[in-house]
């Protein structure tokens, strides 16, 4: 039984515990109202703080600073490019190792809720890693959308049509293939005119996965729903309302 001190609980809320410890904490929480109360506080405070600083992202930087950075001379491009590729390969190897590790976890039929929690944890982790990439944001760029639809649709065994989210102010940038517990997961990535990317992840729903919700994973908001054997998640650094609206737009267009 893990100790339910504040440090453990904050790590639990932020998805920073390993899967086994997180499950132990979840169990221990069932018998401690005080700890559940603390968890609720740790969650809501993160939401408030993130929301409080969301607008700061849209403040225009000083023009003089922008000019100074534009004038900064490029250098060392080739070396940096190859190092970036090497880093990406190292990262992919690491991710693949992680996926295998997760797959080997024991699972029981009563762990449907856990599998959804793990999926959302993976979606958040992937998004945190890839959404920050500038040169390798996507694996296949939006200019090759027919290929993305054919390729990822085939991996998902369905007809994939990339949703048009212009009405949400989002431009499609491209897609990449990820994995969840040994199964393919597609991520389509969109960017707003100004701000961090938003992802749409699609993978096969596990038996018993159902329902729809919008929830937090650390600093990320995820809207997810299950439809026709697939689980869809819209993930991004934006308010619940914003992510929910994007998810609504996707739901109206996309049915594999």
């Amino acid at each position, binding site marked *: 039984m893990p100790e339910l001190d504040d440090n453990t609980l904050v790590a639990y809320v932020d998805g920073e515990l390993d899967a086994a410890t997180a499950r132990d904490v979840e169990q221990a929480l069932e018998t401690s109202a005080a700890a559940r109360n603390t968890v609720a*506080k740790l969650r809501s405070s993160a939401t408030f703080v993130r929301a409080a600083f969301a607008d700061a992202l849209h403040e225009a930087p000083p023009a003089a600073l922008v000019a100074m950075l534009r004038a900064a001379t*490029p250098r060392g491009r080739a070396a940096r490019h190859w190092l970036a590729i090497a880093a990406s390969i190292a990262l992919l190897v690491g991710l693949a190792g992680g996926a295998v590790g997760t797959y080997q976890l024991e699972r029981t039929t009563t762990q449907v809720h856990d599998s959804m929690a793990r999926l959302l944890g993976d979606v958040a982790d992937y998004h945190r890693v890839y959404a920050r990439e500038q040169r390798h944001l996507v694996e296949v760029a939006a200019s090759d959308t027919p290929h993305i639809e054919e390729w990822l649709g085939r991996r998902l065994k369905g007809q994939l049509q990339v949703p048009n989210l212009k009405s949400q102010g989002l431009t499609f940038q491209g897609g990449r293939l990820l994995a969840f517990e040994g199964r393919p997961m597609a991520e389509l990535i969109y960017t707003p005119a100004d701000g961090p990317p938003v992802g749409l992840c699609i993978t096969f729903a596990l038996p018993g996965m159902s329902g729809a919700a919008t929830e937090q994973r650390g600093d990320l908001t995820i809207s997810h729903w299950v439809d026709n054997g697939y689980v869809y998640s819209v993930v991004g650094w934006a308010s619940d309302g914003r992510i929910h609206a994007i998810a609504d737009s996707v739901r109206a267009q996309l049915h594999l």
Partner: protein
Amino acid sequence: MSQSFGEQLLGLLPRLGRFARGLTGSTEDANDLVQAACQRALEREHQWMPGTRLDSWMFRILRTVWIDELRGRKVRQGRGVVDAEEEIVVDGPRVIEARLSLDAVRRAVEKLPETQREVLLLVCVEGLSYRETAETLALPMGTVMSRLARARLAIARLTEDNKTDDHSNVVRWS
């Protein structure tokens, strides 16, 4: 395909500005801080290891510049660090009236001890993992966790008295 160092910094400006806004508590100070941090980064471009995260590196520089150069100016202007709860007492009626306005949350963050505030901003606002935060601030992981928990509970105390409904993060769809 590849961007110059300056272009990459340009792309980070919104987030640098936000982190600076959280650290300094004012847009004006934040602009000064980002400017100074970018200048220092351009001077030290050779110290950045390509393939590693530029955002973490920049957050580290920004925070160092804040501690070394700019914070002293602000403290000299008479704005010390006040405990978050003291702020609640002072502004209690207004906070209740505003029903947890985000402005109140920002002010509470501003009044946190700086060591807690920087951890809170990096994890909750900038989305760094605990490990990345620990590396950025050169702190042990345990310290990151304890500062983060203390900061979050202090912010929650602000919201607690004003809470009439459930602030669960799960919003059920109809």
